């Protein structure tokens, strides 16, 4: 695979202010994404995993500028788009698209499928009339639906079919990069595999680059070339997916991976599970030092004082932990 960087995220921060009182005095911040840096190569799938509240979805939404980043750089194909105005963003919106988690909430119930898919085509003034309709029919075929579905409304479809409509909408403007935010977690298991296979086919056929955000660790491993693990707004580990799953370095990654239920009764019996005590602390004004120290088996005094640096420990395996 060619190793060309498509997107480079540098020191990205996304803080949400917490306001209190009549005049909305700002009292503190939710540090949803706190100084995250990584690169996405052209044509690859980068997985992003972590538990609820770790900032993986916010990272995705900030990259596509659904939020205005607090600071940091989002360099897309050599151009820093972090400070771009909506007008400046318009050409980039054509290149970056998103597939959302909930296929029931992300489609407007009052629009027909054709209008949902065609909306982006209209906004970017790509096609009109017959050509536009042909494109919509083509897209429906690409995602395994047929052209008769174009004039129906979202409620007439099952969850898996709706997610296909969401994917067709993302493909409508011929993007280069798609953020898949938990695209399969609302679907039944037998349907999940259908959608994952389709995403893989589309990547091959259209040369797409994916950022695949999910909490299902086995599915993320299956689809991703590299996987990043987030904890409380920080990226704690990033490596090639087999490497990460066989040699996890960060104590949090180790615990997270050991918690995956293995669909094999004998292995489940023999497996030693690292059960983490407690839960993710609040991201409001987190204390200095390593965010994971309170739940970490290996915590040392230095972990409370110094934020561990996110560094390469060999072969592109990045980890933020004082053990390494």
């Amino acid at each position: 695979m060619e190793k060309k960087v498509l997107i480079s995220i540098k020191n990205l921060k996304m803080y949400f202010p917490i306001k209190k009182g009549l005049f909305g005095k700002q009292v503190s911040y939710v540090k949803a994404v706190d100084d995250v840096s990584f690169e996405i190569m052209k044509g690859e799938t980068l997985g992003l995993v972590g538990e609820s509240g770790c900032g993986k979805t916010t990272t995705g939404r900030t990259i596509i500028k659904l939020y205005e980043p607090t600071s940091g750089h989002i360099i897309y194909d050599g151009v820093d788009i972090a400070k771009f105005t909506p007008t400046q963003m318009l050409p980039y919106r054509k290149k970056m698209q998103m597939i959302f988690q909930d296929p029931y909430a992300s489609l407007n119930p009052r629009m027909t499928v054709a209008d949902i898919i065609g909306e982006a085509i209209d906004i970017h003034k790509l096609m009109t009339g017959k050509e536009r309709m042909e494109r919509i029919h083509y897209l429906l075929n690409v995602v395994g639906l047929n052209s008769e579905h174009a004039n129906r409304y979202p409620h007439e479809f099952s969850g898996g079919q709706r997610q296909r409509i969401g994917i067709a909408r993302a493909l409508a403007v011929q993007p280069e990069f798609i953020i898949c935010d938990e695209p399969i977690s609302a679907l039944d298991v037998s349907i999940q595999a259908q959608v994952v296979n389709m995403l893989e086919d589309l990547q091959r056929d259209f040369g797409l680059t994916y950022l695949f955000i999910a909490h299902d660790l086995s599915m993320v491993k299956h689809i991703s070339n590299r996987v990043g693990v987030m904890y409380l707004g920080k990226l704690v580990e990033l490596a090639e997916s087999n490497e990460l799953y066989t040699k996890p370095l960060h104590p949090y990654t180790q615990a997270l991976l050991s918690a995956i239920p293995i669909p094999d009764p004998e292995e489940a019996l023999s497996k030693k599970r690292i059960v983490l005590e407690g839960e993710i602390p609040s991201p409001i004004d987190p204390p200095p030092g390593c965010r994971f120290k309170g739940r970490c088996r290996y915590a040392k005094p230095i972990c409370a004082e110094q934020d561990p640096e996110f560094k390469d420990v060999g072969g592109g395996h990045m980890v933020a932990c004082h053990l390494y």
Partner: protein
Amino acid sequence: MERLLEIKNLKTSFFTHVGEVKAVRGVSFHLDKGEALGIVGESGSGKSITMMSVMRLLADNGKIVDGEIWFNGRDLVKLSENEMQKIRGNEIGMIFQDPMTSLNPVLTIGDQLTEPLLKHKKMPKDKAIERAIEMLRLVGIPSPEKRIKQYPHEFSGGMRQRVMIAMALINEPKLLIADEPTTALDVTIQAQILELMKELKQKINTSIILITHDLGVVADVCNRINVMYGGLIVETGRTTDIFYNPKHPYTWGRLRSVPNPKTLVKERLKPIDGQPPDLLKPPAGCPFAPRCDYAMRVCMTHMPPLFEVGEQHKAACWLNHPDAPKVEAPVGRRHV
């Protein structure tokens, strides 16, 4: 082994304005004391409705049309609502899927936890609170004396699910029904809850029925598994039989459609194509036949019976008929 629960030919339907939805279409199984049984299936397979029928907690338009539910020597189908209330929360405890909505937001955790004790055991209030605190400690909630006075919104998802488990177990029920108890939780919290359930099973010797769509969860917790599809049990057996020597194409499909996190070579997933059957008009033959790679002519017209394929192992597929063509199962690594 002593029988705790025996379900015979249970049929449950919902009567809607478009017609009768046959959600459970003749299900029979049993559960012994101290056993953990998994019920696996996708949405609409009838797994939750089967257990809701046992609890007699069906929606107003739902009805047990036929069958018997023998629990501890009594047929629950025939009991009055009053008698049923004496069983719910007392002899049978239930944990629901969504810990965020199954607690009452305007009552304290203490009020909700002591309710079954006050109601069923007629325990004095101070004793009940003592017991509730003890129970919260057992499920791993720190400083329970303080937490008992708090409201559900002050608890996180994992903590609420622990409260639900404490509530379901507080009267030491003979049977615990857990309907997707960890689906709404993160994987590290799921690990905590599963460990807790296994530990409690040992400590209080409760029988467990675990309803889930996650094969990893059943592999971890259950001794036996019922695989449900289209309102029927299509395969039943010990956990090792189902994973290592499955005999139904739907089970094969399910086992193949999830990636194994242990494999290093990337293999393409094998989805089950098509959609589950419409239970308004259930098919005459095998409900899985339209999606099945191995379907024969007989499958479309005749429902296969549960063929005996091993000790405690049955599968409802015509491939197990002596005259059927021999088919090599595409999954099941070891033959046991």
